């Protein structure tokens, strides 16, 4: 199974491109889409779920053109947007039931059976009679992911799933995503590089509507190898370096300031270091 995105272009005005001829090929598994705010991530996701029509391009899921028959494909796609604030007065089970009906699961017995199974999978069985509005942030996110699995979709799209979650919930959420990733494509949009590193099989970077695709996280990390420098400076010198270089991080160690800089050119008295994944990302978006 694969998702193929061909030359997708979305313009909001004559000169402003939200997406500029985007091409991607995503195989089975978990795939991360990373980029700064306003890069075009949400636009791409909205196009994939049929909320926005692109100006140009085509999308194929399992070799079938999605844009020509989007109503059919809506049943084959699970989507968790950034905001999941609907049906707050319903219980978890009623909310799942409502979404299952809207997705076209008309057989009541099969539907309820599937809902019970999914709730167990995301550890929400004990909360099935709780109102959605009374769930914690983490539980609501898990409910969000649970509703995406209804109808056994081929493609699941998740927008900023771990934003605002504490580390424990984030780790639990990653586990849930991994559990449901068999035989389908999961596309996750996020700012959190750690989530992508620990969870995703492939990664794409998006900036100003243009995409760069990597087949592995290692390939992504190599993006800035040989370009990250570490130097110890005094606190007074910091402003000078900040104005001159692209500083990625700074830490005080033994009363001295240790800075890490992204630079294509050699920096005097600085040593070259292995970049972290986050530094790789930062150096790419600051380019």
């Amino acid at each position, binding site marked *: 199974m694969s998702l193929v995105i061909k030359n997708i272009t979305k313009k909001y005005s004559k000169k402003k491109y939200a997406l500029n001829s985007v091409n991607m090929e995503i195989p089975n598994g978990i795939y991360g889409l990373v980029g700064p705010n306003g890069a075009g991530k949400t636009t791409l996701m909205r196009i994939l779920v*049929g909320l926005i029509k692109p100006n140009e391009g085509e999308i194929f899921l399992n070799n079938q053109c999605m844009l020509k028959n989007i109503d059919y494909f809506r049943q084959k796609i699970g989507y968790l*947007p950034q905001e999941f*604030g609907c049906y707050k007065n319903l219980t978890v089970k009623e909310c799942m039931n409502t979404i299952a009906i809207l997705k076209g699961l008309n057989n009541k017995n099969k539907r309820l059976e599937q809902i019970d199974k999914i709730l167990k999978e995301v550890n929400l069985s004990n909360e099935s009679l709780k109102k959605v509005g009374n769930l914690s942030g983490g539980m609501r996110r898990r409910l*969000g992911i649970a509703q995406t699995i209804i109808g056994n979709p081929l493609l699941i799209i998740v927008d900023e799933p771990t934003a605002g979650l504490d580390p424990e919930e984030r780790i639990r959420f990653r586990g849930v995503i991994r559990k449901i990733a068999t035989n389908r494509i999961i596309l996750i949009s996020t700012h959190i590089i750690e989530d992508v590193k620990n969870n995703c099989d492939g990664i794409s970077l998006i900036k100003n509507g243009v995409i760069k695709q990597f087949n592995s996280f290692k390939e992504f990390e190599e993006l800035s190898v040989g370009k990250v420098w570490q130097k110890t400076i005094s606190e007074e010198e910091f402003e000078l370096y900040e104005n001159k270089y692209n500083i990625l991080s700074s830490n005080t160690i033994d009363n001295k300031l240790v800075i890490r800089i992204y630079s294509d050119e050699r920096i005097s008295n600085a040593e070259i270091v292995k970049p972290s994944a986050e530094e790789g990302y930062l150096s790419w978006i600051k380019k």
Partner: protein
Amino acid sequence: MDKKIKILPFSSDIKTLSINIYFLILGYIGLFIYQWFLKSGCDTRFIDMMLPMFTVFCMGIIILIIPLFSNLVNPMANELILSLPLGGIGYVLIRVVRIILIYILLTFTIYSIIYFTTNKKNFLGHFVDIKLICSSFIFLAGFGLLVMLIGRNPIYAYTSTIFLFVFSYFFRGSGLMYWHVCQWIQPKPNFSAIWKLEYTMFISGVICFILSSIFIKNKNYLLKS
């Protein structure tokens, strides 16, 4: 997955309406008690009871219909709902029809109580009023829903229907005469004119619902709310 009409559970709709239902029922009970016990004894008791009841019932339908669909224009909720394959018949028509039918039943019960306790002689008028108020429900619900979707905000639905109501109630605009279906005020009611109004309202209401169903397909527009 099949292509049958998707019928959402009625219990979910009632829960979605949440506190609105209780407010509405409390309003009716309060009004009824007030009219019944505090304004009794005079010849105009029937009119005294019918007018506010008519007003409250007409506005009540908006309170019941708008919250059912307000998720479509709520930026915290609409992205998920709009990404689902919503069908016009299951998502709009069936939900609206069953709420209106129950509401009509409630109206019919309360009107019957008023008629049989105040104005038993004019039994025909009872059905005329009920028929007219049903058309008002359909028109108001459809109009309110369409305005909410166009304006992408439920407040527009409430304010525009209240404005329409107040305007026609006080000024008796000819096209909006249905607000004065209280035909007992007239010595000789013109029933053919009333039917015409009723059909016009019914058809306008249905058109509003059809337009609303089409509007729901315009997901990009609704997402901007």
